[in-house]
Structures are given as C-alpha cells and as structure tokens.
C-alpha cells in the first residue's frame, strides 16, 4: 500500500537553529513529492515540490528538500528557523497518473526564542 511516514510528530527547535523534518514514502513507481505547511486555523500551503530533474528542490521561505530515490526519502531542511515557522508540516506523495495525494501524519514544529 502507498504510504508516507513522518517519523517525528513534534519537533521543538530554538530560533536560528537548523531544521530537518524527515519523510519517507513507499513506492514502486514514479512519484511526485510535496511538502505543505499548515498554520493554525488555515489551509494547506505548498512549500515545495519535486516532480523531476534535480533532486534538490528549493521552496518558499528558505526551505529546501532533497529527493533520495534509493532511500525513498524527501527530508525538508532549513538552515535557520524563525519563530514564524511554527506550524504543522505535511509531507505528501502522488503517483504518476494518479488522482489522489497521500499525506503523512504531519510534524508539528515549535520554534522557541
């Protein structure tokens, strides 16, 4: 079955510290990978996407992620986080020719001063 695993349910970090949020997916076919962010009481905002090409993708607000096919991972990184990055982050995958996007359980990021 297709699935997405986000290993960390909650991640506390200090402001200006580096960040990595982990994501692994199960797949035997070509995939498209996404990270979405959800601020409190808001919808899902696309941070970045991997469709093809370079395995390092850059998104909004200084976020980036690296697609690793051999490890079936798509970890999200940011060199230095801000208080305003406090939110829930969802890794998601869709499959070639498929209609649905499958979401991970989410990682709640708390950035502390």
């Amino acid at each position, binding site marked *: 079955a297709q699935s997405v695993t986000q290993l960390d349910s909650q991640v506390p970090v200090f402001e200006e510290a580096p960040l990595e949020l982990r994501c692994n997916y199960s797949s035997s076919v070509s995939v498209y990978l996404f990270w979405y962010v959800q601020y409190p009481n*808001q919808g*899902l*905002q696309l941070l970045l996407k991997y469709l093809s090409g370079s395995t390092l993708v850059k998104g909004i607000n200084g976020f980036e992620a690296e697609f690793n096919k051999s490890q079936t991972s798509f970890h999200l990184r940011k060199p230095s986080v801000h208080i305003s990055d406090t939110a829930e982050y969802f890794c998601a995958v869709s499959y070639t020719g498929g209609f649905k996007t499958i979401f991970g359980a989410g990682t709640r990021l708390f950035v502390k001063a």
Partner: protein
Amino acid sequence: EPEVTQTPSHQVTQMGQEVILRCVPISNHLYFYWYRQILGQKVEFLVSFYNNEISEKSEIFDDQFSVERPDGSNFTLKIRSTKLEDSAMYFCASSDRVGNQPQHFGDGTRLSIL
C-alpha cells in the same frame, strides 16, 4: 495569486441532517478534490472529480457522500445524513492537471456534528 475559496468556514449541524460544503476552485483548473482532516489526524483523500464525473474515490467516500459541479465555478460536497464521526475539517483542492500537480488547497470548512 488565485485561491481556492471555501464556504462556510465553520458549519454546525445536527446528526442526521444533510450538509453541503461549497468550494470555488481556481478558475482555469480542471481537476477538483475533497480531503478531510479529523482533529489530530492526517489529511485523508476523499474524492477526485474531472470532466463532470468522479475519477477516483477512497473507501471513506461511501453512499452518504456525493459531489457536484452545479455550474462553471462551484464544486460541492454533500453529506446526506451526517454522523458524529463526520466531524472534521474538509478541504477542497484543485489542480490544472493530474499527476504532475500540486493541488492548491482552500482554507477548509470545519464541520461539527452535534
């Protein structure tokens, strides 16, 4: 930037009643989706809709659910006889192509069943 808009933002309904959640997708998009997020749980796919028919649905999307595009701009999700477990945030999304997308999400409708 164009947005997906959803109304209402919060809907409170008695168990057993019908509810219709409304969405206006991005105007040039052709593929439409509904997802739900039960409080504290992951976002789950419900249904996708293209060319005036359902293209894919999950096991959650049973006979109590239906979708419709009644005109050129709206996309609705109807729950015929709501149950307590239907309480969730419902997200509408749209994309301009399938597979090679991201889907653009609305801010959601919080449905509370009493």
